[in-house]
């Protein structure tokens, strides 16, 4: 695949390196240092940082504003955008805003339902869905057009990705769904956190059988478990999350004070195993409010140092 944007992440993937991305959740307030400090913890160990968009429907500093803080400190941001909160006017407007700061990566999502968050009485928009958002970015980037048909002066240059959850139901359309996202223009994929590696391998096999791994870059998602409680919560309470019983047992059987270390061990073992899975082109490490552990995970998983590729500014 040839490079289409100035994105550093795209270059790293195109050159055949295993990419490493991580993420920063913006703060529940306006202090820019909350973003900057998180990014400083991980910036030397990852190629790009996702900035979540009001994740779990809890109101936070905007993803775009937090991305701009990252960009200004020389870190490569991945703008996450959900279709829950904005109509097509606001979406196109924010894409142009991001492009004006030379943000070169975007992840298109539908977003958690607002009933999980701090405004359950609010409306959701979903004027577009995540696939239609991918199509919109491509129209703006590749054809230089707005949805309304007019030309865009200085079109955005965004390397555009989507999420995939190999563990959600119905399982039989999980691969067709990926194919559909690729058809809509997903150039990279970040997956849901993988704990059930067997099931992930089954999904990847089907992905490779259809040749989809050659049409997009798949980054395997991992999240270190902090405790047995978190493992059980993820299994029982987080929709679309698959934490097998042997992982739960391993955490439960570990003394409480050793559980964080064991969670990180599991995460590193998972990365090691996933490295040999055909079609995996990198890792997306989501250390939820535990960013300080990312450098150690990246180093112990043999993914450090990161390739030296200068971002275009």
């Amino acid at each position, binding site marked *: 695949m040839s490079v289409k944007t100035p994105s550093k992440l795209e270059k790293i993937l195109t050159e055949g390196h295993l990419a490493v991305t991580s993420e920063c959740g913006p703060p529940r307030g306006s202090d820019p240092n909350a973003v900057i400090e998180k990014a400083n913890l991980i910036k030397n160990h990852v190629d790009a940082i996702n900035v979540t968009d009001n994740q779990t429907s809890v109101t936070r500093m905007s993803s775009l504003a937090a991305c701009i803080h990252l960009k200004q400190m020389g870190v490569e941001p991945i703008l996450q955008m959900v279709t829950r909160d904005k109509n097509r006017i606001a979406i196109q407007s924010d894409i142009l805003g991001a492009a004006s700061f030379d943000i070169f990566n975007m992840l298109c999502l*539908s977003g958690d339902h607002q009933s999980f968050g701090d405004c359950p009485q609010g409306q959701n928009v979903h004027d577009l869905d995540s*696939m*239609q958002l991918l199509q919109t970015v491509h129209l703006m980037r590749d054809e230089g057009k707005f949805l309304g048909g007019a030309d865009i002066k200085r079109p955005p240059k965004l390397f555009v990705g989507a999420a995939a959850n190999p563990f959600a139901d119905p399982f039989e359309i999980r691969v067709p769904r990926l194919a559909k996202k690729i058809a809509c223009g997903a150039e990279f994929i970040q997956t849901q956190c993988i704990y059930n590696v067997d099931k992930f391998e089954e999904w990847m096999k089907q992905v490779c059988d259809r040749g989809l791994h050659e049409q997009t870059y798949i980054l395997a998602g991992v999240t270190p478990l902090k405790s047995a409680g978190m493992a059980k919560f993820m299994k029982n309470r987080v929709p679309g999350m698959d934490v097998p019983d042997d992982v739960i047992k391993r955490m439960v059987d570990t003394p409480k004070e050793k559980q964080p270390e064991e969670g990180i061990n599991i995460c590193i073992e998972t990365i090691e195993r996933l490295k040999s899975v055909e079609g995996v082109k990198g890792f997306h490490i989501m250390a939820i409010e535990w960013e300080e552990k990312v450098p150690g995970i990246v180093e112990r998983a043999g993914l450090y140092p990161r390739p030296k590729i200068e971002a275009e500014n």
Partner: protein
Amino acid sequence: MIVAEKKPVEEIIEFIKEDKKILILGCNECVTVCEAGGKKEVGILASTLRMYFLNQGKEVKIDEITLERQCDHEYLEEIRDVADTYDAIVSLACGVGVQFMAEKYHSVPIYPGVNTCFLGATEERGLWTERCQACGNCMLGITGGICPVSRCAKRLLNGPCGGSSKGKCEISKDIDCAWQLIIDRLKALGRLEDYEKVCSIKDWSTDRAGGPRKVVREDVQI
């Protein structure tokens, strides 16, 4: 049909507590079927209000009428002679009926006695569920006869989100995942490959977004 449910009686009392002559007006259509605003519910509400006023030591006359429909001029005319004699009318019709009443009878306040909920069906006695949001641009032909606009909590048009689990929606284990139903149905029809057809960006101008809607049929106008 239009599905409604009864408003809490306290809310209705707030509207009419100072009035002396009140009409409770039912509707014999959808709200009768969903047991929220038919003749039976008119009787129950009237009795409840009579008890309330009796306990308050107030003498209030409460009448009961149920019309064939409240969304039709012809039937609303049936109360032409009496409407103005009331201090208030509580309509147990859907929001359409309440508004049509208010447009027709200007000198008497019309209060809603039900909350209008959705366009739905009776699954079983006492259970009504949503089926349509009247988006004005029906796509059931490509989704196996199951509507993602009304039945997916995110009205996703291209497949289930990552929160679909064991056939249920991420927001509640009591709600079916619309896309699981669509996939099951496409499979039963031998059309699962249709799932991969991308549904392009929808024109929502025929939905609520386009402003108050109107259907004009010159061929049937008199």
